[in-house]
């Protein structure tokens, strides 16, 4: 190897730049990244790098951390399904518990997403109780609607209390879209169902006569126009009650026009969908879109018999003797890259973290899944 030397001044500038870079990145580097990059630096020490003899500050260049530093965090509380049966009802207490937990976060999240199904039967009393609890959150709240909120009066009370269900906003360089993805084909007008009959039909998850959720043409048109103003490099985060993909039709873990919606999101570099309704940790990736489910405060759904996305590491089945098990709240950290890390704050269990790095590694084999399982059991086992 021929010995190569740069003009002294340029070498010195390069050295200073790299040294500054290292000191800036070190505090944000995880322990794992540090050791990884240290190993790489050791390997690179034998090789000329960019024509400049390797030195200790090249740790920065060699690091190549896939995980970029975090930009901001928002929390979520979802699927509280409040019933107006006295303030001691478990669903109300669980919602309050989530709010307390979010309020205890330090630092506070930038905002809190409410993921839909605030009420169980869409009644004004239920929505009012829910609104009262969410008002005690310290951080600002962004509301999203679920089918349980909507189908008693087709959203009349919701609009009055929380405004239009479909909207978008920008926050620290990320474009957020909030959808009403629980639109179903009208099956109640013809048989002259009463509002409560309609609501009860929609409330039954395993309703064999249920119609699939959709976003619908009107909203897709709105979305197209909304996204036209957004640069393809801007990170997009979509809030949706239904998953915006197809998981299990009999339980409406499903969005019928998912492909059409995904098509509208396809041109963008980084897209994440945060969805509710499924009451369980859920991870999926379809092309450029990462999908994360959120927890319910009220009760967990079992995993469906089929259709589970391969990326998902299932939480161990909830202990029926513990009313908070399998439930909780969570948070999402938006990274510099525009991708997200997802945090599930499961009550009475170890929290689950699904980082973007983990997602980009693809589905894990069975042995690794089992190992990850072990840290996530509630006690006592039954």
């Amino acid at each position, binding site marked *: 190897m021929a010995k190569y030397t740069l003009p002294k001044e340029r070498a010195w500038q390069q050295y200073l730049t790299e040294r500054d870079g290292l000191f800036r990145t070190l505090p944000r580097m995880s322990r794992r990244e540090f050791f990884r990059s240290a190993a790489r630096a050791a390997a690179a020490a034998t090789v000329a790098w960019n024509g400049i003899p390797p030195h200790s500050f090249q740790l920065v260049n060699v690091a190549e951390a896939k995980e970029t530093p975090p930009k901001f965090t928002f929390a979520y509380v979802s699927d509280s399904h409040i*019933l107006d*049966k006295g303030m001691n*009802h*478990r669903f109300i207490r669980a919602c309050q518990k989530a709010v307390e937990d979010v309020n205890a976060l330090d630092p506070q999240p930038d905002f809190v997403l409410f993921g839909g199904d605030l009420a*169980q*039967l869409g009644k004004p009393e239920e929505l009012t109780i829910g609104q009262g609890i969410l008002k005690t959150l310290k951080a600002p709240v962004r509301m999203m609607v679920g089918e349980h909120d909507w189908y008693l009066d087709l959203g009349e009370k919701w609009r009055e209390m929380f405004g239009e269900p479909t909207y978008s906003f920008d926050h620290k360089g990320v474009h957020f879209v909030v959808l009403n993805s629980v639109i179903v084909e009208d099956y109640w007008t013809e048989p002259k169902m009463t509002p409560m009959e309609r609501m009860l039909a929609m409330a*039954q*998850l*395993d309703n064999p006569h249920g119609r699939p959720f959709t976003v619908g043409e009107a909203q897709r048109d709105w979305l197209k126009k909304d996204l036209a103003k957004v640069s393809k490099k801007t990170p997009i985060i979509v809030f949706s009650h239904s998953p915006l993909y197809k998981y299990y039709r*009999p*339980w409406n873990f499903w969005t019928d026009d998912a492909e059409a919606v995904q098509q509208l999101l396809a041109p963008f570099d980084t897209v994440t969908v945060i969805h509710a309704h499924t009451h369980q940790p859920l991870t999926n990736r379809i092309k450029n879109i990462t999908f994360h489910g959120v927890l319910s405060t009220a*009760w*967990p*759904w*079992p995993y469906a*018999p089929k259709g589970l996305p391969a990326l998902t590491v299932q939480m161990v*089945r*909830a202990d*029926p*003797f513990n*009313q908070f098990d399998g439930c909780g709240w969570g948070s999402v950290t938006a990274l510099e890259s525009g991708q997200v890390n997802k945090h599930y704050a499961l009550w009475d269990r170890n929290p689950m973290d699904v980082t973007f790095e983990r997602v980009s590694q693809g589905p894990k084999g069975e042995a690794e899944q089992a190992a990850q399982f072990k840290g996530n059991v509630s006690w*006592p*086992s*039954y």
Partner: protein
Amino acid sequence: MGRMHRILTVTAAMAVVCGVTGLVAYGDGPQHELPAPADGHSKVVGLCDGKTSVTVPGVAPGERMDATTARKVADELMGKYDEGLQLAHGGSEHTQRETRVWEAELKRTIDEGYKWFHSNELGTNGISCDMCHPDASNTHPESYPKFQTQLKQVALLRDMINWCIENPLEGPKLAGDDPKMKALEAYILSTRKGVALEPGKH
């Protein structure tokens, strides 16, 4: 007495548990008309076929037999039992009508169970079974009986059903022979048709 009623009655009689007393004391169920004792005063024991009986000399009606005598009585009854009469109509195959009746009645009970499973009236707080168990998923009835730590005893499916009614649903528990309980069990079990029994599975 219509033919249907006769078939049902005899079929029901066949279904009676073979007991040494021969008495069907279960609601309005069919009775085995026992003949008078051969010696005029001793105990008569009837078989579950509704026809066969033996007199037990030296034992008074209502008196409890010792193990040896009871064993002899049972052997004698089984000896006299005409296996050709095992079916309602002497050895021929089930008729279409019978099969339809059985399926219809079972379906009625299962549908009743489906209704209660999805009803918020089992409890008092608006919660229903299907909220945690859509399509009765995660009920695993095939794993009962099992020792349930939290109940500190061995539990049957109905014990867990009652626990759920009392706790998450905050409702009154059901008696074992409550039609709602039978219907609920019927529905839950029907969703696990073909699944191997695994009592004690945790």
